[in-house]
């Protein structure tokens, strides 16, 4: 292929399964974009649509990476339900934090009504952020989160309470997961009604579903049926695919075959933590999914660029020939305080080691 594609050409062709000039670069770059735009803390990035989308588009242009803006509600999937959320206005915070979950016990859960996403708390800010990203023709990734532990605890139910219920009252976990799934589906329906289904992509994140916390049997029984439902219903609305971040260690969920069961679109995009080898990801998921890179995140924050480039080179070489394509990336959110030269290393490595 001659000449370098524009970022949007590369991204769209990758998602449509067409040939591209080189591997795409960058995924899950969020809070870092606010820091390189001069914000000391990340509060405005999560709270204000213009700051969020503006920071992401400027950083994308400056570095030359391909990831479009990612939209996460300032309610963080928790404030919408009435949980208390602290936005990251303190420098030490890397993301919004759920300070008190709305459900502390069985009675709270039974009485909890699934909110209407169009008029829940934070819905205006969420709507305006999606709208702004679409107005900029940026083809955003929009968080639609439901049916998994990560969208439920601590977003709706106190984390330790939910974890204990897994053993003592799994029916309560199912009730909470069902409510969370219903909210996600309603959110996608609302967004499709407002913006259509051809100018944004849904994304979800599953850190607290990882096997460092829960076993694969529990994941299979409680989460898989609901996550399948959410993914399929959203695809049925006409959205082409899902980006899903299997954050941290999902090795046992992979081995149990649970992740194969989740509808992802054609292709989908899978994003695993560095705990899973790139060979395993490509072999198991590469035929039907775009594979996203998974270099150890703290390395970006703590190591010199030469070492980060080596890690990226290795990761790209293992993943670039994955049948549905590859995106060079850090294996979780890029640490917000990553030195800019290490963020640039993602693009540099994609150009140097990821040519087709």
């Amino acid at each position, binding site marked *: 292929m001659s000449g370098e594609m524009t970022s949007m050409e590369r991204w769209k062709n990758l998602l449509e399964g067409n040939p591209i000039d080189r591997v795409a670069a960058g995924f899950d770059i969020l*809070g870092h974009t606010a820091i390189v735009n001069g914000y000391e803390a990340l509060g405005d990035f999560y709270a204000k649509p213009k700051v969020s989308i503006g920071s992401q588009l400027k950083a994308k242009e400056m570095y030359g990476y391909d990831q479009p803006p990612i939209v996460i509600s300032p309610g963080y999937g928790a404030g919408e339900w009435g949980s208390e959320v602290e936005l*990251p206005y*303190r*420098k*030490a*915070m*890397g*993301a919004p*934090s*759920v*300070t008190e979950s709305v459900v502390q016990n069985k009675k709270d859960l039974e009485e909890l009504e699934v909110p209407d996403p169009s008029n829940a708390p934070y819905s205006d800010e969420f709507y305006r952020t999606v709208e702004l990203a679409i107005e900029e023709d940026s083809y955003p990734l929009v968080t639609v989160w439901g049916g998994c532990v990560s969208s439920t605890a601590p977003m709706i139910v106190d*984390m*330790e309470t939910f*974890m*204990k219920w*897994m*053993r*003592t009252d799994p029916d309560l976990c199912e009730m909470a997961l069902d409510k969370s799934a219903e909210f996600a589906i309603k959110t996608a329906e609302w967004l499709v009604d407002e913006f259509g289904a051809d100018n944004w992509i849904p994304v979800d994140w599953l850190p607290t579903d990882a*096997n*460092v*916390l*829960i*076993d694969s049997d*529990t994941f299979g029984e409680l989460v898989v049926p609901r996550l399948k439902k959410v993914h399929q219903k959203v695809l049925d609305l006409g959205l082409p695919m899902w980006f899903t971040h299997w954050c*941290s260690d999902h090795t*046992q969920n992979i081995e149990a075959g649970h992740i194969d069961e989740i509808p992802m679109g054609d292709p989908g995009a899978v994003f695993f933590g560095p705990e899973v080898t790139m060979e395993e990801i490509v072999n198991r998921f590469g035929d039907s999914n775009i594979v996203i890179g998974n270099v150890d*995140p*703290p390395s970006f*924050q*703590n190591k010199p660029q030469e070492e980060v480039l080596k890690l990226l080179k290795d990761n790209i070489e293992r993943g670039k020939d994955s049948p549905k394509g590859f995106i060079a990336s850090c294996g979780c959110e890029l*640490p*917000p*305080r990553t030195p800019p030269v290490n963020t640039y290393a993602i693009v540099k490595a994609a150009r140097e080691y990821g040519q087709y």
Partner: protein
Amino acid sequence: MHNFISFVLYRVLYGVNMGEEDLFGELTDAVVAGDKDRCRGLAEQALDEGVDPYRALMEGCAEGMNIMSDRYDEGEAYVPDILLSAEALYEAMDVLKPHIDVEDTGVSGKVLLGVVEGDIHDIGKNVLKSIFDAAGFDVIDLGRDVRPEQFQESIEKEKPDILGLSALMTTSMTGMPKIIENLQKAGLRERVKVMVGGAPISEDYAEKIGADGYAPNAPRAKEIAEKLLKQKREED
């Protein structure tokens, strides 16, 4: 009511004079099963029968927590199981502790624990606390999202042997070197061993920031803490 029922049930099932070793075994099993009502009932039974409460705690409950800790380390138990076991452990501790003579405990050391500022992810720290409690450490838990100054103030006040710092985020982990630096400036660094842990933390990072120990998970943290404590005792 539950406590009374379990107390009566155990009396019926095992008779009035269950042997000490059997009772300890039952306590171990109850902690492993995460059965807090059974734990409380057995702890009350231990007191009624004049069993040494410290032995009931350490040879019964703590052994259960050790088993769970090993199972977690080997991928045979998960956070929900550990949380339930910890709950059962604390249920028995509530009953037994007021009857334990501090001088009899031979408590091995004092540990100050906390999740650093900006980070509310405290499940790992809570699991660690229960394992440390079961191991006989005197544990002071500062909770989550703890400011550097709070660590310093608590070290001055509580004089712990070990400071355990936990972080789950790359943004909050940068608070760890600041805490260590503050301790150095305040002349407190030599008084306390510092150990760090959490998902983004590595052995290299621990060394780089001047920590004395690193543990990849809660069960390993107990071994490291015991090693550091031994070191400290030798230095003192």
